[in-house]
């Protein structure tokens, strides 16, 4: 297990990771500077017989520098991650053509409701799956997230998606996956004694496979109804 972020497979995962590594470099530099100076001073200026400390109260220029530089740096960090934030969570960041899925969290399971082939909710071909999310690849997907009891948090590490599911309100989270496969889904907000068991899987399938899957599933459920 190494010290890097696990591979990300959504369109904005790359942006998030880039922000992370950018901040890692900046703070890493700050860290090295501080620790190195500290250690160096401790050795260089350790008290030795006959040496007296130099008596002065500060140096304005130095202070201005180490106030201004961090100020500029953090504002820069703010602006950059603000850009990515808008792209992910901005008012109209959700692609209009996004495939909708309803996810209702409750202790301790995730219930995903699909509109069925007709793409509309509240019709007879809707169906619900438990702890298993199936989404098409390379297609924007919007999850209408809510909760029936306490606060949960939809966490899909590989997609860099995390959003609390709050009872009494519906939050739209969107993502667009770039690779098919099976990915872990977890609950990231303490929600009771079963919090730790509230996992699931996200299956990412090819677009046509997804369409077929919708057909099959909804008819199968209809039959069983």
């Amino acid at each position, binding site marked *: 297990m190494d010290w890097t972020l696990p591979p990300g497979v959504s369109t904005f995962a790359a942006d998030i990771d880039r922000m992370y590594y950018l901040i890692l470099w900046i703070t890493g530099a700050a860290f090295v500077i501080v620790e190195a100076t500290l250690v160096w001073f401790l050795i260089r200026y350790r008290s030795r017989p006959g*040496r007296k400390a130099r008596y002065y109260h500060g140096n304005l220029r130095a*202070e201005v520098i180490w106030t201004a530089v961090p100020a500029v740096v953090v504002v820069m960090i703010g602006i950059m991650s603000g850009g990515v934030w808008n792209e992910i969570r901005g008012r109209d960041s959700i692609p209009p053509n996004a495939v909708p899925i309803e996810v209702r969290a409750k202790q301790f399971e995730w219930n995903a409701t699909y509109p069925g082939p007709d793409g509309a909710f509240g019709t007879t071909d809707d169906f619900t799956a438990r702890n298993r999310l199936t989404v098409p690849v390379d297609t924007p997907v919007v999850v209408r997230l809510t909760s029936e009891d306490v606060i949960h948090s939809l966490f899909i590490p590989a997609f860099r998606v*995390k959003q609390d599911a709050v009872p009494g309100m519906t939050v739209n989270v969107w993502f667009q996956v770039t690779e098919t496969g099976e990915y872990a889904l977890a609950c990231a907000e303490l929600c009771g004694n079963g919090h730790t068991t509230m996992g699931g899987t996200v299956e990412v399938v090819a677009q046509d496979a997804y369409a077929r899957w919708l057909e099959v599933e909804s008819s199968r459920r209809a039959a069983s109804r």
Partner: protein
Amino acid sequence: MTSVAAPIEHGGHADAHAQSFVRRYIFSTDHKIIGIQFLLLSLVGLLVGGSLAMLIRWQLGFPTQAMPGGGILPETMAPGGVLLPEFYNALVTMHGTFMVFFAIMPLLVGVFGNFLIPLKIGAADMAFPRLNMASFWIAVPAFALMVVGFFVEGGHAGAGWTSYAPLSANPEWSGVSLGQQIWCVSLVVLGLSSILGATNYITTIINMRAPGMFWFRLPLSIWSLFITAVLTLLAIPILSGAAIMLLFDQTIGTTFFLPPDGGQPLLWQHIFWFFGHPEVYILILPAMGVVSDIIANGSRKPIFGYHSMVYAIIAIGFLGWIVWGHHMFQSGMNPTLGMSFMISTLLIAVPSAIKTFNWLGTMWEGSIRLHVPMLHACAFVSMFVIGGLSGVFMASTTVDIYIHDTYFIVAHIHYVLFGGSLFAIFGAVTFWYPKMFGRMMSRFWGYVHFGLTFLFYNLTFFPMHQLGLGGHMRRIYDPTEYEFLQPLQGTNEFITISAFLLFAVQLIFALNFIVSWFTGEKAPENPWQDTGLEWTTPSPPPHGNWPETPTVHHPPYEFSSPLVEEDYLMQDRAAGKETP
């Protein structure tokens, strides 16, 4: 000077010498005794919090395995030594609660606020000594109540130290009813104690500074305790209000936070964090203050840029009020609001930078004595920087999407609270121990404790960053439930082992603390050759601190001043001319 002579009157304890043991050591109104009482109480709190952490670590390192000796725990907690999930939640909740409210906060504010403020500003006692006594004796039942909670029907509160509603508001979802109510009541009671204390500190510092102790001659420890007191005064009542509403939701059927009846879960988070973020600065500012004192002393040099240090404290104190939303980036809060909270949060890096670099500037060209307190102070600087810098990651809304509620946050918490606050506390206790008890703590064991703590501390908490990167969620009972976390289990075991060692070496401190009390070498008036007023009176100081109020002629950190031949110039030393 407004009321130099006043306290003798108001306290009504001028004749304390004639008083019984009880009045002098138990229901004492002497700020020094009360400080020591707080010290003992909060060290026990630290011990409790630490022990809970050990149980947490066992479960995370060796999930659902019977804990050696865990059999002594009652069935409701750990049948056959295997911790139950509900007990684990209670452990995490109470670990956070005890460490924040019953260990670090009283250690910094209760202990050093009480002990140092009058001694360092040249006052005979607090402005309201009886109120001071009350604030301690109100804290005790709060502490006791929080402990009792473990043994009540349904177990202790288990919704995290943040007690997010609605989980905390409705027993039917958490299985905990009485425990959560006890959490609320205990914190409200403790809050009263803190508010009384804060009122006392602020009044004292404003009104009772000795002649010549101008605002800009106050030691930075006092400045930070002052700002801390202001934060406490204004933040704690918010928590009390929130806790009361939560209590009512559970007991008398109100619906503040219960969505089915229109309640707003996010309202709890907003109110809690509006208190919560100032709270975390309450937990760091006094640490920064005492560290500044110790670093100046250790470097034998005036603090670098005293004025900007003061302004930085004030800036942090103020900014702390407008950043609370950074705990709620993923909570469904309006994203536009998130943006502004990100900016204000990042700005706090600036005053923090000023402080960090000014500490380094203080050592620059100094003549550094690496005594035990100085070592802890240096550890504070280096570790706080790690914690602070990791804060910058989460301050960035986008990065926070991934690391929110993972062990990256847990690592942050412990780098600022243990690496920061607790190292400062170890340093400060060692530094002022002689003034408190009239004896020195063992230097040798001090070095040993520092070295081992520094080592095992980093081995325990640094790997948590790695867990966080791997997506390891907080507050989960059994990481191995998740396939994608199994590769991380090795790290978890490593952390657990180091944590046990970390706890073990804390016993060195405990023993050093207790044994030195009786057998430590007698302390002179000014063992560290410091410049503060507290070192101009015997160790321990007599009742009333000085025969007559001292007069201040110099700024706080006149080390290596050319005015005198020795390398420190006491604040009240009438050498040469007044230094402005």
